[in-house]
């Protein structure tokens, strides 16, 4: 039985007429509502999900398309609050000019080569 699940994000999806990236909130649901031990790895462009200062808002004909204002950072915080481990890849942060001080508190920064160990310690991988 798969119990320890690694969920990997590579590409950020913003402002898609969902309240947030559906892969992200599906993962958050798994973290909050199931006994599975789910951890998250943000790499490539998806490291931006861990940046704390996000603000989501866009209007069309005066109507807000993201009325809840749910940011990926808010969902990352939600998952941390529910016990998930959330990691970001240091090299991908650096390539995008994101200092660790800009990240949501509690997110762990790991090296690219650490991901092999993380992969090996889980029973299943979901790469969205």
């Amino acid at each position, binding site marked *: 039985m798969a119990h320890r699940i690694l969920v990997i994000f590579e590409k950020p999806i913003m402002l898609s007429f969902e*309240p947030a990236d559906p892969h992200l909130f599906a993962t958050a649901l798994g973290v909050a509502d199931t006994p599975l031990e789910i951890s998250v790895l943000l790499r490539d462009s998806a490291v931006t999900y861990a940046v704390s200062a996000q603000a989501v808002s866009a209007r069309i004909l005066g109507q807000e398309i993201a009325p809840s204002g749910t940011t990926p950072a808010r969902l990352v915080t939600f998952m941390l609050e529910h016990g998930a481990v959330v990691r970001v890849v240091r090299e991908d942060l650096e390539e995008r000019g994101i200092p660790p001080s800009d990240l949501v508190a509690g997110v762990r920064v790991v090296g690219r080569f650490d991901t092999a160990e993380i992969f090996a310690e889980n029973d299943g991988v979901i790469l969205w």
Partner: protein
Amino acid sequence: MHSDEPGPSGRRRVRRVAIVLSTGSYQREAPTTVLRLAEKLLERGIEVNVWAFEEAVTLTNQDQMEHNEPPSLRPVLGESHAPVGRFIDQLLRAGLHGAKMDWVTCILCAQERGVEKHQMGGAIVGTLGDLWKFVGGADQVIAIPAYR
């Protein structure tokens, strides 16, 4: 509204923009950008012709429903959200009182996805030929890449 006066660059102002869109919503930001830009172009009196291909034919599915979010996530996601089709419908209606937006969905793609009979009022089920008529008749062509 539209003026025949030259723009700041001294060129004849644009009257018609064709937008080729091949991506659906809910997992891509591209349709959002297209709708945001279409609104701005319509405001400037520019006719907007959208040709919806591949997954983009689902954007005008009239059966999109506003649903409740999962209970445990409502503190984060809110109660519900409006589907993309509502915004397209409003932009199509906005053309009644200003510059017009035509939205044509590819019949082949719509049939493959079972949405040909589910297109919202105002969306036109068209052919591949309409793509090239839109492109040929436009002052500006914007083609959104369908990258994976």
